[in-house]
């Protein structure tokens, strides 16, 4: 019964008891947290099919008795590791695709070595991706390949698709892919050409250090890291919460350095001159216009994406030359769109129904 003050006095002992129990559990689990490692990530069985410097091509072992004709190549963003798409069983996008009958390959990245500072956009778009596509074709025995690009992996896939419009890319799926870099307002301001000496930075450090990449991501929401640590402490008695926290925190802080020349091009061509949006982008002297892409395309964007705001991504579908094109906006943020409980319910089934009919 509620007292006139609005307090339910009868429930107070129960609440106190619950909080005392949680406080005890926090102490026990807190010790456990610091003395154990997190869950093993990226454990879906795979073979490292090819590896060359910063580039690795994985082939995941099929989990279905019968697979779709067209293999799928996932192109990961160059700033982060691919295991975000393969967290733990039951929360792995890769595992989901395999169980739904797709033959899955992933182009993943490791930290570029100091001598790889000279890797250029050309190396990524005209060498790494085509090389992987050729290997997928040879391994699968199929000419067609569907490409899935996550975040900047989507940008690389778009550049690849626009330079090689005659195939072999059969379908393209982009997750949270920016094309209008003016609309990435904070990144745009951080790299303001009046104050950001990208040449000086690249010439002095070679590869752009991961700490710089990570801090620029964290600055987009400066209070969130502290708040997430408060939330961790409040919920440390909850094993599921802790597991989830550890998975995402490990991934988010496992940022990769960027090859210096590649970063220089991103800054000058995309952040400063917005060439992809302005249809003036070229890679290695080859024009990369989005209108060249004619294959079926699905673009999944997140309603609350603070890294790639919708304004930076919304023009993609309009600028693509395909007749079969679709944008789908789903609830969630930049990461929860593709990984975690929400993705299992929202994005993955949508992607399966879209891609399945185009993979035969």
């Amino acid at each position, binding site marked *: 019964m509620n007292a006139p003050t*609005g*307090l*339910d006095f009868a*429930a*107070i002992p*129960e*609440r106190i008891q619950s*909080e005392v129990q949680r406080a005890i559990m926090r102490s026990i689990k807190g010790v456990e947290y610091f003395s154990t490692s997190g869950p093993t990530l990226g454990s879906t069985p795979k*073979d490292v099919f*090819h*590896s*060359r*410097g910063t580039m690795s091509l994985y082939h995941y*072992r*099929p989990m*279905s*008795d*019968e*697979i*779709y*004709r067209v293999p799928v190549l996932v192109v990961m963003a160059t700033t982060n590791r691919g295991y975000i798409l393969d967290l733990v069983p039951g929360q792995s996008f890769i595992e989901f695709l395999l169980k739904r*009958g797709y*033959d899955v390959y992933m182009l993943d990245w490791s930290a570029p*070595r*100091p*001598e790889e500072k000279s890797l250029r956009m050309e190396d990524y778009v005209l060498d790494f991706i085509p090389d992987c596509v050729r*290997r997928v074709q*040879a*391994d*699968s*025995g199929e000419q067609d390949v569907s490409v899935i690009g996550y975040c900047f992996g989507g940008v690389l896939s778009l550049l690849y698709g626009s330079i090689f419009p005659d195939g072999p890319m059969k379908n393209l799926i982009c997750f949270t892919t920016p094309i209008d870099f003016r609309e990435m*307002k*904070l990144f745009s*301001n*951080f790299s*303001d050409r*009046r*104050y*950001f*000496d990208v040449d*000086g*930075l690249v010439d*002095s*450090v070679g590869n752009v250090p991961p700490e*710089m990449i990570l801090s620029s991501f964290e*600055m*987009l*929401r*400066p*209070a*969130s890291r502290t*708040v997430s640590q*408060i*939330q961790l402490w*409040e919920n440390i008695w909850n094993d599921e919460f802790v597991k989830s926290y550890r998975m995402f925190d490990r991934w988010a802080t496992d940022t990769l350095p960027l090859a210096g020349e590649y970063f220089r091009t991103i800054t000058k061509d995309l952040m400063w001159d917005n060439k992809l949006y302005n249809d003036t982008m070229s890679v290695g002297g080859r024009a990369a216009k989005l209108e060249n892409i004619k294959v079926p395309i699905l673009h999944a964007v997140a309603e609350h994406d603070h890294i790639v705001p919708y304004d930076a991504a919304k023009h993609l579908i309009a600028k693509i030359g395909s007749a079969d094109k679709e944008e789908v906006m789903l609830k969630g943020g930049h990461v929860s769109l593709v990984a975690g409980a929400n993705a299992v319910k929202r994005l993955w089934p949508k992607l399966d*129904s879209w891609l*399945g*009919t185009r*993979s*035969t």
Partner: protein
Amino acid sequence: MTDKITDPIALWQKMVGEMEKGFNSFATKAMETPEFSQAMNRAGGAAAGAQKQFADLMEKYLLSMNLPSREQMTGIAERLQAIEGQLGEIRSMLSQMSANSGDARIGAAPRPPRTRRPPSEGGAQK
């Protein structure tokens, strides 16, 4: 059960959430200004310069200690990378030769047939 309005824990959580939103919003506005960009890049440039000077100093130190220089290590890394690349090529060629001869891939399990149809076309959902 206490409701959310009177539950001090729920109130605390709500307050933390609101503070997070408020601070993020405030900081975002501040970070969108050119003054912020100027200050940030000035500090970042100084840090990069200091890092470069430190790296040069370390290289001289390593040289005086008769340890391999960065350039030498990079040279070894490049050679290793070339060897890795060649190994990858050999492996790929072997797989290709094996596939062409009709044998199962070296060390690989047999692949399922590529005959799957989507459920909408009457394919089975396994």
